[in-house]
């Protein structure tokens, strides 16, 4: 046995493409620290910064009020552009407006597809959470799902609620469950409890790759016959897709979101480009299942998918 050290991760592919453009871009998200998903957004953004020779300043806070202060913080720092998530567009509108007033271009990514223009962002890169959920819902409905369980790992999160609402659009019988995403043991126990309480659950929909791994354990231990799908990917989850433990993943390609957000700012500054021509640029939903997992699996190990 014994694991070999991995090759150096993200950033090793084509470094230093753009020389030194001198730009500083701020990225502000509503990340709760420690999620593999956000890690990929950061990896993409960092790669873009490296490629365009600019500097990236990343900051995050799940509380909209604090996220808004962080945007203000970027404005105070006189950055050359701001990329932000718009999970709570109304709450961030003021801060985005103040960036505009300071002539700092703002692009949105990951969330806020319907409101980004309204808020004042120039472009949008990402998928639509509700749409992604709905697509997933429709796909499992076609596979015969009657009573899926949608697992929310952070109570009250707008994005997660939107995904579950989307799934419910696809399959009317969808039920939600709240778990404590910061504690794997607790996630397993809660899921186990739910699966034994309601034997009619035929699909489990997890909203993050780490939770999917816990769900596999829970399904196993409660001898449930429910099938599992998940949002997002990581190396282990990709392996489980290959092994057939996870039916498929709805991937919104976070690496691309981060990469495009920063690149678009660069192009906008440098060249006045407007990617998407006034329309949102969709990075997903893209399905990862047994049909394409072999191609994708190596990339997940690089932390780029």
């Amino acid at each position: 046995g014994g694991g070999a050290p991995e090759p150096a991760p993200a950033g090793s592919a084509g470094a230093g493409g753009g020389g030194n453009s001198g730009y500083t871009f701020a990225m502000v998200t509503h990340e709760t620290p420690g999620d593999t998903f956000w890690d990929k957004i950061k990896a993409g953004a960092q790669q873009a910064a490296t490629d365009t020779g600019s500097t990236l300043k990343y900051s995050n806070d799940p509380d909209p009020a604090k996220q808004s202060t962080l945007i203000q913080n970027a404005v105070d720092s006189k950055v050359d552009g701001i990329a932000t998530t718009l999970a709570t567009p109304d709450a961030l509108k003021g801060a985005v407006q103040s960036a505009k007033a300071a002539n700092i271009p703002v692009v949105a990514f990951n969330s806020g597809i319907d409101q980004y223009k309204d808020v004042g962002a120039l472009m949008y890169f990402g998928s639509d959470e509700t749409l992604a959920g709905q697509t997933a819902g429709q796909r499992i409905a076609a596979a015969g799902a009657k009573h899926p369980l949608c697992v929310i790992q952070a109570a009250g999160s707008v994005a997660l609620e939107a995904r579950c609402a989307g799934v419910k659009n696809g399959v009317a019988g969808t039920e939600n469950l709240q778990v404590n995403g910061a504690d794997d043991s607790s996630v397993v126990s809660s899921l186990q409890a739910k699966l034994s309480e309601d034997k009619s659950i035929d699909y489990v929909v997890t909203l993050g790759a780490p939770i999917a791994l816990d769900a596999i354990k829970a399904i196993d231990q409660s001898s449930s016959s429910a099938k599992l799908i998940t949002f997002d990917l990581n190396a282990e989850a990709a392996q489980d897709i290959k092994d057939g433990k996870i039916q498929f993943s709805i991937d919104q390609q976070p690496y691309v979101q981060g990469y495009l957000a920063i690149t678009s700012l660069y192009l906008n500054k440098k060249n006045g480009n407007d990617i998407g021509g006034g329309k949102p640029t969709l990075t997903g939903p893209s399905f990862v299942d047994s049909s394409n997992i072999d191609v994708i699996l190596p990339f997940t190990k690089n932390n780029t998918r």
Partner: protein
Amino acid sequence: MSQTVKTAPAGAPAEASNRVSLGLSNRLLARPEVGAAVAAIVILIFFLIMAPAFRSPASFFTVLYQASTIGIVAVGVGMLMIGGEFDLSAGVVPVSAGLVNAMFCYNLGVNLVVGAVLSLVFALLVGFLNGYLVMRTGIPSFLITLGTFFVLQGANLGVTKLVTGSVSTPNINQMDGYAFLHLVFASSFKLGPVTVWGTVIWWLLFVALSAYVLQRTRIGNWIYAVGGNAASARAVGVPVTRVKIGLFMATSFLGWFIGMHSLYNFNTLQAGNGVGNEFLYIIAAVVGGTLMTGGYGNAWGVAIGAFIFGMTSLCIVYAGWDPNWFKAFLGVMLLLAVLVNLYVKKLSTTRKVG
């Protein structure tokens, strides 16, 4: 021996007194907030060096704004802690209050001012309930308010889901009364390149009021007493129950205030928010020199604590440090602040006089 008593003119020492009179610098150093202030200055200078982006008035005022949103509730939490109690529900009360206001008015089409008053009543009720249960049952406030914290957190989500079908409130900025309330709770003005937020001014007002109450009024005396030794305070006639319930209500009031700010600043509220803020308030109070066990502390100290926390958390970003290490920096800064505070206090008690 009785002659000294009879002949001594009022105010003159009765005997060759070895009374100590402390020098100004010692008196100053002994004030509970001075340690925190020194710590704040040390960290301020540190970040002025480390974070060039912080060296503008605009940045400074952004920090002040951030500090004020923590600091306003921390004023109440600090007083409560001086009074010997905790309030873990202080983080979600603002959200609950905002939700009550927004949903009540939106769904019934009522003027927002009515909703604001209603939500104030609601918040005061929560505070009263916290205090009443703590005093009535004798269960530690940590547990009682943990209970209300969970209940409110659950209810915020449950009720919002029920009423709006989503986890956030609708946008209220088109409703009657919005302009007025926005002005009161969420206005800001430009001073050259600098945006000054109303909350900063409100914050200073609340701190000044709290400082006055604590130092200069009978109620302040009682607050220190119930926190320092509730049994003794009761024995000499301090109405312990009323004081503590009052403190819980004051905390809820300030929670309501900041809830109104969030609502009228952002026009919409997320039902899941606020969780975790209760600890920021406690941190601000403790960094500012408030004793966890009650009976000691000071309003300006708490304000400085909030400022230190706000400054540190934003300046790590201004300095552009690796966000993965954010919390680690924050932790080190906090420990630093507390150590400096302690060192200053030690200095004040070990310095000789004369």
